[in-house]
Structures are given as C-alpha cells and as structure tokens.
C-alpha cells in the first residue's frame, strides 16, 4: 500500500495542484459577481450562466466547432498516410524522421504563426512567387480568413496526429496483414478490414489531440484570422483580460471544459465498445 502511494504520489499531487484546484477555482468564480475594477465579489449568483445563453455566443461556439472539425479532418487526412509511411520505413530511418516531425515544437508556436504571416500576406513569398511565375494576376487572399485559421491549426497540431497513429500502426503485427492477403483479401480490403480497425485507438487519440487545442485556440484566429473572426478562446480571453469579468469568463470556460469532457467520454465509450465487440466477435 505504502509503495503504491509512493509511486502514485507525484502524479496525484500534480493532478491536484494543476487540475483539481484550478478547475475548482473556475467553478467557484462562475457563481460569483464581477468586481467593478477587477477580481470577484463573493456574492452567489447564477446570472453569469443566464448571460451565456445567447445566440451571439452560440454562433461563436458553432464557428469554433466548425474550424476545429475542419482542422482535425484535414490533419487526419494528411497525418494518417504520413504515419503509415513512417511506420513502413526501414527501422534505422524511423527515428530521424520522427524527430523531423516533432522538430517544429522546438520553436514557439507564436513565432511559427508569425512566419505564416510572412508567407501568406499579399506581399508575401507565396503571392510574390505566384506572380513572378505568372500564375496569378492579382494576389490571392490567403491571409486573414477562415482558410488561414484552419491552415495554422493543421500546421500547428499535425505532429499530435501523426505520433499516436504512428505508434498504433507500428505496433500492428505484419502477420495480420499477411494473413488477410493470404486469405484472398485485396490490399484495400485488408486496409479497411484489418489495419484501419486495429489503428482506431491511434486515430481517436490523434483526433482528440488536434481537436481539443484547436477548439480552444486564440492565438491563431487572432494572428492568421486578423481578428476578423473570433473563436471561443478569444471570447474567454477577452472576458478575463479586457472586461475584467472573471465570473463570466469562468462560465464560458466551464462550457468549453464540459464540451471537451463529453467528447473524451464519448471517445472512451466508443473504444471500449469496440474492444468488447472485438473480443466477443
């Protein structure tokens, strides 16, 4: 018992200090009143929740969901083949290629996002290049729109899609695929019936890893969206910093947390069901 506590202690402590306490504070703030010049007044109220039921905030939430789903789907379409390719490389090549995948994380996302501005703006490298090649007459509107936001999110979080998928493909025994093809399945059928179902946990993990930070992102819509569209993250940030309305910011944050919690629960439930079916079947 004592050894278990010893082993689990650091993780539990971390969990308590960096998850339980902050989330409890957010919950507590959500039922308090805003102080005129900042901070909170500990008067209990449910007004903050009532204020959140508003078509304006629903519209922002729906836009955020659309952007996050788009980013996740595109990251999956790019990430799965990439992960598959890496997993089939000769063993000595895999580590260097994986290092290349995570290399961008060595630089701050903020700086890499600014780099996209340099590339995409009307006078930027891409437009200048296209014009020099005579491919376009007018510069393309590549920046300060939804396209740029989705691009920035896919770029930023793609490694988080590739890594879990890679590890699930790499763990797959080649014998399973061989057996499938020996039994007469075409490569496509083998992929759909064997490889894909068995790498589903990696896909699910990758999708969650991309979707969750995309939904809460506020730097990317600010910089690449030019502030012309806002996501939930911007809304929450504005409540805390601009309006000094911590209680309302806390309510919006709770809604986001609840939404993400629901998704994680759904993912766990689906995987569990899948696993049971696999065992029963």
């Amino acid at each position, binding site marked *: 018992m004592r050894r278990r506590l010893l082993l689990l202690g650091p993780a539990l402590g971390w969990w308590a200090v960096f998850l339980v306490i902050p989330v409890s504070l957010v919950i507590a703030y959500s039922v308090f009143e805003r102080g*005129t010049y900042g901070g909170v007044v500990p008067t209990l109220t449910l007004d903050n929740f009532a204020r959140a039921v508003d078509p*304006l905030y629903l519209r922002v939430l729906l836009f955020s969901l659309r952007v996050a789903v788009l980013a996740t789907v595109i990251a999956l379409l790019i990430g799965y083949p990439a992960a598959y390719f890496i997993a089939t490389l000769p063993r000595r090549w895999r580590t260097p290629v994986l290092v290349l995948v995570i290399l961008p994380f060595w630089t701050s996302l903020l700086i890499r996002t600014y780099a996209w501005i340099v590339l995409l703006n009307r006078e930027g490298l891409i437009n200048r290049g296209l014009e020099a090649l005579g491919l376009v007459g007018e510069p393309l509107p590549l920046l300060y729109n939804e396209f740029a936001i989705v691009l920035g999110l896919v770029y930023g979080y793609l490694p988080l899609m590739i890594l879990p998928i890679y590890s699930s493909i790499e763990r797959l025994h080649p014998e399973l695929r061989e057996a499938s093809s020996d039994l007469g399945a075409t490569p496509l059928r083998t992929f759909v019936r064997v490889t894909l179902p068995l790498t589903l946990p990696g896909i699910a993990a990758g999708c969650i890893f991309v979707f969750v930070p995309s939904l809460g992102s506020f730097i990317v819509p600010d910089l690449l969206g*030019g*502030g012309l569209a*806002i996501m939930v993250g911007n809304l929450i940030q504005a409540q805390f910093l601009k309006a000094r*309305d911590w209680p309302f910011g806390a309510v919006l944050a709770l809604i986001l947390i609840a939404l993400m919690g629901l998704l994680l629960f759904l993912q766990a439930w689906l995987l569990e069901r899948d696993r049971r079916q696999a065992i029963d079947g």
Partner: protein
Amino acid sequence: MNGRNIGGAGRRAAVLLGALALVVGACGASASPTPEKPSGKIVVSNWDLYFPETLISDFTKETGVEVEWVKHTTNEDIMGKLDASNGSGFDIVFVSAQFAEALNNRGWAERLDRTKLANIGKLDPQADKLGYDPGNTFSIPYTWGTTGLCYRSDLVSFTPDSWNDLLDPPAELDKKITALATDRWLLLPALKALGYSANETDEAKLNEAKDLLISAKQRLLAYDDTTFYSKLVSGEALLVEAWDGWCNYGIAENPDIKFVVPSEGSDLWSDTMVILKSSTNKTAAYAFIDYILRPAVAKTVVDLTLYKVPNPEAMALVDAETLAAFPNLAMTGEELLKGEPLRDLGDAAPLWARIVAEITAGQ
C-alpha cells in the same frame, strides 16, 4: 516576497554616495531640509523596450538604488499579476492612464506627495488637467499622445482627414486598411465619427457604433495592434488606424508615410508611472520618478520610443533632425488636450466586451 537586500555593488555605491553627501553637506550647509536619501532596491514593472538602454544603470550609478525591471507585455498582464498578489510585489508600475485609474479605484495606488518630486515643475502644466487624474494625485504621465490615421501618401490618391476615410473608404483602399484590435481603439473611429465620447457607456450609442463597424469590417484587411506599420511599409496596407508613436516607426522606414489626427477628434492616451501603496521603499520610488522627470532623461525616452513626453523642456532638447522626420512629435500639450483622455470604463466594461464580440463575430 521580494527580498529587498542590498547587493554588494549597490551597497558600495551607497556608502560612497553617503560619504559624498556628508562632505557636501558639511561644506555647504546648503538649501532646504535634506530629503531622505534613497537607497536599497526597487522593483519596477514596465513594458519591454520602454526604458532607454542606460536609464536604469545611470540612475543606479547616481543614487546607488538598484532597480529590478520586470517586463510586462500588456496592461492586462500587469493588472493580472497585481490581482493575484493583491496589489503588491512592485514599487512602481507603468500602466496606461485608464489602468492607473483602476489601480487607484482599487485602493492600490499611493497618493503622491509632490514635495518629494523636485522636478515636478518640469511636467507640462497641461498634463495636470487629464480627466482620469486631475492634478496627478496618484500617477505621473511618462509618455502621451493620440490616435489617428497613418497612411502612404505616395499610394493614396487623396489626403485622409476623417475617420470616415477608414470606416467608409473609397474602392482604392478596399482590403488595404487595418484598424486597431484592442477594444478601446477598435471602437474609437466609429464613436468619434458619430460624435460620441471615446469613453461612451450609453448602450444605444455603442450599438450605433457597432453597426457602423460591422459594415466597415467588410473593407478591412485585418484588426492589427502590432504589425500595422510594417504592413504600410510593405504596401500590404495603405491606410491604418495607428497610435502616433507607432506611425513614427513606419515613417522611420519610409518617409512617404504620414500621420493625421482626423477632424472629428480623437483620444488622448498616456502611459503613467504609479507608486503602489504596498511599496516598502517609497523614498527610492520617488527618486526614480523624479529622475525620469529630468528633461535630459525624459529626452532619451523620446529618442527611444518616438513618443511625446509631457515635459516641454525635454521636447525642446530633441534634435531638429528627429523633429523634422517625425512631425507629430511637435504636437504641444494644448493640441493633445483637444483629444479626449481615455478613462476606465468601470461597470460598462462587460458591455464593451459584448459589443466588441458582436463586431468581431459579426458578418
């Protein structure tokens, strides 16, 4: 929390200066009651790149007071820190006027004793009339200026002079305009174009401004607080809403860039120095502010930031070449006071946040 221990070098300098003061005192038996000698250490929070390179080291050399410069990125950043520490941890904070007002309303700002600021007379008399703190009772302005239009005179076919040039631009400017992203300045052009206050709290008037801004948004390239002047330099934007000093950064790279304050009027912004009540070394804090009020020191702030300082003698020291290159540096206190000083929004802040969300989420 902040150990205010005197560092070795600091202490040596302090001892030396102390000895010097004794000698001077003995020789002169001079003027007025000897003010308390500053010593020890102060913690100052200011934006990055907002102190001239040698300001702190020169001050330390002269007084022996060690200055720890903590950098904040935004007003909101330092306000958040003060919220978390209940207004302690710093001796002096540099914040914009409306945030100084909030600091005072929370009871965290020290009521200033002007007799401890020998150079207070150097401050522009106009700077005593700012609505957020008449008479500068809890804040001393460090820099001040206004907001206007910054444009490429070589690429725009007319001379902009109205906020409507930004809100309802001719076709040549379509998607070649940026506006400031921070709520106070995001609403400023529409409020002024409609003849309302920059500190408007009336919901109907704010809604009117909102509608105007949602329609103006269709023509906007982006909301931009940080890179608008480089967009002008690259030609990506031709007309931008800009703070006077930041327009100067564009002018420095391209003299065809010009600044104008629209005819409908604008704001008056100022960045101020506030001593916190919780400061445990107020003598040194006063000495630091007094040092910055010296014209020769304040002049170096102008050289670095290309902002105006509320210190006529310091402005007079700025070399002719700089003044010629950046015409808006010549604006006097009287001219600046035609602008409306920004005030804290108090209970209207959530309404402003909602209006801004409606504008930025609006189609």
